[in-house]
């Protein structure tokens, strides 16, 4: 059942939250998606002070483990935070609980958010409900599979490159990354501050719209948070797309298999039948090819600086004893995996005076050109769309987080919306070799209402609403 339909008595609500917690525990041996299961008794008691008409009243939810929860272990799936108990809630946790949500657990992720497979989590890989031999995708993999497998209708993630939208594609659910600044990041462990967004997963467009009504809004504790009013996204997501102009990225369609092309073309024909104006658009190929490099350089440079506070002294797991240098070095060596330390070395290389012009500054200049190219298209169209991936989730033993040039454009282009800050989401629509693949939609900044409206039209024609892949 999706969440907007859940208006039930207090007793039923309590049962529902407890059932969700039990189901989360039951699927754990198969999916390995949870880092921590939360106690719900106190939260259910607190519900007595919440209006039963609150938007998420009694809703069981899970949070990615980089979102600070007061008194609850928050590891970001890294050993260095293996004992970290936050003393405050992230802004969004307070908002969700004020809206009646019940947090039943914290979910696995790529270590510190720095990956796209969920293979780097300290608690091991997360498995895909559609094929347990395949990855969940990352970095918000645990949250994605909890929604996909029907444990919860709504889960929080974060998206720095495509960390919500790619796992959404692999798991046949909706993944939303709103406009930069639309949701406060206060209390969310950062990765790369100029690219980081809070995002989330649902199984219906209406729920995606409702979730943003709860999550969005100004927070003085996040300087990048927007003052723009929060809209009634649910009311505006009617699926009426007459005259809506949609650009399909031709560069990506050219690389798609016939199987995926056929399904994409069928969907576009259905949108045309609803009155939408759909055209293929070619974007600058050199700029698309540069997306991964821009992302890799900027994100690693920013991460190197952001994670310098993980020292094993003020919080986190501590090793060493002879001196503060000994403590820091041993704590950081043991606390970060090889992959993360490797990324930090690359980030440090890019930040070094002699390399900054060639790496970081160059990447930041190309970032501007990529954003200008996006805005050229968004100046003529209401939305840019393309498959979120050319294939379903890869097999566990056939993928890694090593830097790769394979499928350079099609598998890495979604970080454009992190460069620009524009809202972007993935919605189920196709299968390739029997595995789900989502469609990515990107609109202009703060036009989430338009994005959800187009998504609703797509959901209406595909019928892929509230799809659950049970694993029990």
């Amino acid at each position, binding site marked *: 059942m999706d969440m907007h339909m859940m208006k039930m008595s207090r007793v039923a609500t309590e049962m529902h939250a407890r059932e969700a917690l039990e189901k989360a525990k039951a699927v754990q041996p198969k999916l390995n998606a949870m880092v921590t299961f939360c106690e719900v008794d106190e939260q259910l008691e607190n519900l007595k002070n919440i209006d039963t008409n609150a938007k998420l009243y009694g809703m069981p939810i899970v949070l990615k483990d980089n979102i600070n929860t007061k008194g609850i272990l928050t590891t970001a799936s890294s050993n260095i935070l293996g004992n970290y108990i936050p003393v405050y809630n992230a802004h969004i946790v307070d908002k969700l609980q004020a809206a009646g949500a019940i947090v039943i657990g914290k979910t696995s992720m790529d270590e510190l958010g720095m990956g796209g497979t969920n293979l780097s989590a300290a608690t091991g890989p997360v498995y895909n409900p559609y094929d347990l031999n395949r990855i969940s995708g990352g970095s918000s993999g645990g949250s994605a599979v909890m929604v996909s497998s029907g444990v919860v209708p709504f889960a929080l993630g974060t998206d720095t490159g495509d960390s919500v939208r790619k796992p959404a594609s692999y798991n046949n659910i909706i993944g939303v990354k709103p406009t930069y600044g639309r949701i406060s990041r206060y209390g969310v462990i950062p990765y790369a501050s100029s690219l980081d967004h809070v995002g989330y997963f649902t199984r219906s467009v209406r729920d995606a719209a409702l979730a943003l009504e709860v999550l969005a809004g100004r927070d003085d504790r996040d300087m990048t948070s927007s003052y723009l009013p929060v809209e009634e996204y649910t009311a505006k997501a009617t699926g009426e797309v007459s005259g809506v102009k949609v650009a399909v990225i031709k560069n990506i369609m050219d690389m798609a298999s016939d199987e995926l092309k056929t399904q994409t073309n069928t969907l576009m024909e259905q949108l045309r039948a609803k009155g939408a104006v759909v055209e293929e658009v070619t974007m600058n190929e050199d700029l698309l090819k540069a997306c991964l490099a821009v992302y890799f350089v900027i994100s690693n440079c920013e991460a190197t600086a952001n994670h310098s506070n993980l020292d094993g002294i003020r919080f986190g797991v501590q090793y060493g004893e002879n001196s503060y240098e000994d403590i820091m070095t041993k704590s950081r060596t043991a606390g970060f995996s090889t992959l993360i330390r490797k990324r930090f070395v690359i980030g440090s290389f890019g930040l070094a005076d002699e390399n900054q012009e060639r790496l970081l500054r*160059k990447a930041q200049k190309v970032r501007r050109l990529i954003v200008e190219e996006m805005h050229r298209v968004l100046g003529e169209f209401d939305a840019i769309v393309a498959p979120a991936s050319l294939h379903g989730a890869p097999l566990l033993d056939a993928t890694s987080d090593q830097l790769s040039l394979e499928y350079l454009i099609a598998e890495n282009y979604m970080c454009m919306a992190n460069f620009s800050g524009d809202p972007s989401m993935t919605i189920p629509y196709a299968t390739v070799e029997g595995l789900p693949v989502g469609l990515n939609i990107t609109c202009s900044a703060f036009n989430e209402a338009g994005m959800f409206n187009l998504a609703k039209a797509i959901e209406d024609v595909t019928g892929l609403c509230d799809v659950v892949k049970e694993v029990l």
Partner: protein
Amino acid sequence: MNKYDKEFLRKLANQLMFDMTDEELENVQAEFVVLEKQLELLEAINTDGVEEMIYPFEAPTSFMREDEVDNVLSVEDALKNAKTARQDFIVLPRVVK
């Protein structure tokens, strides 16, 4: 010295206050080979006269907040996650023996 020399990379790691094994450093060297190919794609793009884009939105903040105490972390909370705390301080090994 090769710019991706193992000892140079080890120095970068140590500056960031962690160690890497020889095997890990060889892995970093291999990644730099791929990164170089990526950088070639960046270098192929003419950025003459283009300003760096640091953040998605570039509207300047033109106001200052009121100088009011808000959102304070108590000393007790601030010390809760430290391994060793005494009185109001986090305790580290002596620097001067």
